[in-house]
């Protein structure tokens, strides 16, 4: 369309093609133009979507570290290649960040000139009528008896009533409506920028930590006390609000089919300033301390175990959390490490030089792997759990002696027992299988030691998440939606009118219209508008119904 060089959009016009200057400044400027063009933005957007695909298909460190480990075992040749391209951590990969950053810059480079153009359009009169209105996508032409000046005035009145912005001169009229479309569009794009900033700031200054709490225990918010703690790049330990949470009781109920019905963690919260309150912490109902939230994210069982020597002296006693192996029926695994027993044993060591083995005295240490089964049933696959609630709780104990390696300096997980270098301790089958409780049978070990499982309790795992910018992200999201609605629902259109006197003393009225998109239904609106204009541009009605001439 050559009639209207001014489009209804503030999308900057493509730069004129210039001969390729070799000067670096020109090259830079061209590069900037290319980067901030709509086409590049489209390309970058598509790239961003494409880049997110491997992140959903390949296991990710941030979501499922164990799945990554499994994948690495299964594909020993492919995995290193994937790792090289950060495919196990796509959303934190430099190349993902590069696309994101380019899009960000492109968006800024595109939005700023558009804002300038839009503000200019808002301050200016609607653009003057093109010379030939009949060549516009919408046009109309008719004759009337009214003189030119009255035609223009009547049309201006009609259009103003319909909330057009109108500019007139003696014979022509220009009107425009729907500026909010562009305002909304710019609001949308600016809100998108703010959202990206808020996401970035939140992850840089926030933190996330998780903590497993046994019934009856207390947690104080400190980076040193978490089971896992992930600070942002710029988070300092002093940013942690030192509140306390005490778990009184975790309670779960289930449907008859074993699926979860309710989870409740009854907790007491104490703020840094000492205010105490009680809460029923549930899924979907976190506990808030300012912008830090505490969530209930998991639960499980814990066993109370006691290790005694032959004389009945207690050498080790603890409540150990068991990790569910099966998230449906909660068959769980617990690890107990007893490095101190006061007793000695011998251990085989081989001399690396002579290759001979010798028996040397060593402290007696025990390691236990205990399987906790909340509702035990015997199947031909062995003992299984049939239900997640503790309806028929049993524990099955496997014991090891040898070097636990707790003082070896190599960090260990409390939830893992490294049994290499340990010897399994034979326990008669009928003694391995016990019902936890105060009067539970004592399991015989070596040298007269016994292990007793005196009961079970539950734990809840809490996740603490601090995102100082999440309020801003929400504001940005609301603005984004508002801008989007304005941008997609407001219709922007221009109408022009030209009145020309004829030799016969009448007036020819020409009207033309232009809309932003063909989907705006302007092709239907325009004839209606023309009908309206034709109806209003008439000699004043003879009788005025509001002032009856009596």
């Amino acid at each position, binding site marked *: 369309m050559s009639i209207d060089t001014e489009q209804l*959009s503030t*999308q900057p016009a493509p730069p004129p093609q210039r001969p390729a200057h070799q000067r670096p400044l020109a090259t830079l400027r061209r590069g900037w133009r290319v980067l901030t063009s709509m*086409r590049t933005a*489209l390309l970058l*957007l*598509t790239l*961003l*979507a494409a880049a*997110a*695909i491997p*992140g*959903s298909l390949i296991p*990710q460190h941030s979501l499922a570290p164990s799945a990554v480990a499994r994948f690495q075992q299964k594909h020993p040749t492919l995995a290193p290649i994937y790792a090289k391209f950060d495919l196990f951590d*796509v959303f934190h990969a430099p190349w993902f960040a590069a696309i994101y950053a380019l899009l960000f810059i492109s968006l800024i480079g595109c939005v700023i000139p558009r804002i300038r153009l839009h503000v200019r359009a808002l301050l200016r009169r609607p653009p003057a009528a093109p010379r030939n209105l009949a060549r516009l996508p*919408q*046009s*109309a032409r*008719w004759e009337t008896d009214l003189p030119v000046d009255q035609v223009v005035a009547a049309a201006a009145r009609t259009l103003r009533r319909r909330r057009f912005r109108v500019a007139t001169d003696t014979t022509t009229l220009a009107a425009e409506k729907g500026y909010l479309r562009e305002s909304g569009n710019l609001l949308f794009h600016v809100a998108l920028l703010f959202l990206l900033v808020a996401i970035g700031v939140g992850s840089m200054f926030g933190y996330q930590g998780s903590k497993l709490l046994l019934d009856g225990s207390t947690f104080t918010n400190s980076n040193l006390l978490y089971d896992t703690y992930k600070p942002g790049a710029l988070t300092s330990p002093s940013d942690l609000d030192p509140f306390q949470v005490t778990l009184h009781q975790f309670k779960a109920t289930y*449907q008859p089919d074993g*699926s*979860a*019905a*309710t*989870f409740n963690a009854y907790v007491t919260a104490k703020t840094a300033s000492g205010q105490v309150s009680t809460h029923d912490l549930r*899924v*979907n109902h*976190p506990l808030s301390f300012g912008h830090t*939230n505490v*969530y*209930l*994210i998991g639960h499980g069982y814990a066993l109370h175990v006691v290790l005694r020597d032959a004389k009945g002296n207690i050498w080790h006693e603890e409540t150990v959390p068991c990790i569910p192996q099966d*998230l449906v029926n909660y068959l769980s695994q617990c690890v107990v490490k007893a490095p101190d027993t006061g007793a000695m044993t011998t251990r085989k060591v081989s001399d690396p030089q002579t290759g001979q083995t010798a028996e040397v005295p060593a402290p007696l240490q025990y390691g236990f792997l205990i399987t906790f089964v909340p509702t035990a049933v015997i199947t031909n696959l062995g003992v299984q759990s049939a239900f997640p609630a503790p309806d028929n709780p049993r524990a099955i104990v496997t014991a090891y002696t040898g070097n636990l390696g707790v003082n070896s300096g190599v960090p260990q997980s409390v939830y893992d027992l490294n049994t290499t270098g340990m010897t399994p301790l034979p326990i008669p089958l009928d003694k391995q299988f016990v019902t936890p409780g105060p009067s539970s049978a004592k399991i015989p070990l070596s040298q007269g030691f016994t292990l007793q499982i005196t009961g079970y309790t539950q734990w809840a*795992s809490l*996740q603490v*998440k601090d*995102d100082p910018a*999440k309020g801003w*992200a929400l504001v940005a*999201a609301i603005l*984004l*939606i508002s801008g*989007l*609605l304005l941008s*997609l629902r407001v219709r922007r259109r221009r109408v022009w009118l030209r009145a020309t006197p004829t030799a016969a003393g009448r007036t020819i*009225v020409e*009207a033309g219209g232009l809309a932003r*998109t*063909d*989907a705006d*239904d302007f*092709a*239907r609106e*325009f*004839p*209606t508008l*023309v*009908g*309206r204009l*034709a*109806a209003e541009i008439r000699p004043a009605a003879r009788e005025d119904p509001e002032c009856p001439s009596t």
Partner: protein
Amino acid sequence: MPVDLNLAHASDQLFFVAIVLYTLAMLGYAAEFAFGRPWAAATREDAEIEAVVARTAVPADASELEAALVGPRTATETVSRPATAPAGPVLGDGRVVEVAASRPARSWLRRPVDPDDGAGAGGGSGALFGRIAVALTMAGWAVHVGSVTTRGLAAHRVPWGNMYEFSSMIALVAVTAFLLLLLRQPVRYLGAFVMLPVVCYMAIAGTVLYTPAGPLVPALNSYWIKIHVVAVITASGLFALSAVLTGLYLVRSRYDSVVARGAEPGPVARLGRLVPSAAKLDTNTLRVITFAFPIWTFGVIAGAIWAESAWGRYWGWDPKETWSFITWVIYAVYLHARATAGFKGRRAAVISLIGFAALTFDFYGVNLWFSGLHSYQGPGV
């Protein structure tokens, strides 16, 4: 509260009846094509008919003088351009705006009068089948609403808590959108093409994805489920409709290019003569996507707010979130492509179909193949 088994059973039966009614409706729409001989009008004359009478949507305000268009220049009507100067304004395409007339009649039970809108210039028994099909669609819709409602009442919760229920709701949204569109535009030609995927969708939902009525797992038990899921389902139903329109657009534009070459259209392209002009289909696709996009955006944001309260972070690139984002980006690319020149027609249509493929994967692929937080389990460790 326990599940009301009688109501749950009634819901399942109504679901089945709805499928039967929709299937019959689909056959009715197909019969309209078969007996209406739509190809009589749809070939060479098409270009001339493009310029036929456009009914203007006129405000109903009785105090206002209403404008309507008369005096078309067309081969199918006998009224020609008046010899004397016209009484009203003449539009650029030669039509005359007259400053008096009544409101245009509603178009739903009647065969479309505008060949550009509807399925050609057939009539007679074809139109009767079409009308019966619309009545069957409405009956099926009412029964479908009954099925969804009784399920909610049976389980004492909102009836969109598992994939069977989501699928049923998406189908319901698509049918509702079609019926609403029918109130405003003569789009009965769409009937067969909307009912076919709806029936397939519901058949899959009722067999493969079927889940007995039951309570929600704790993670889903939030008022955000009402907001987030309603938005996502509504947008999905609309995107499904846009994909049908896009498909028809591609068929029609292929038909147009074959006919323009003077060749005989193949079996698929021949479907093109059953539907309105490519430009109209294209515009309607854009309209539906423009309407659905903010709803989808809102749904994704509501999901993030829900995730923030359930899992402690508003965005975590879980596969469901990732694919929602991908879907969002593709439809944003579609809107951008349409907003700038040079990316109309088939290339834009392809983007729209890719968007719908991503959406489908988001709904089904992710639920069936991945086990993210969105696989609707209780909290894990």
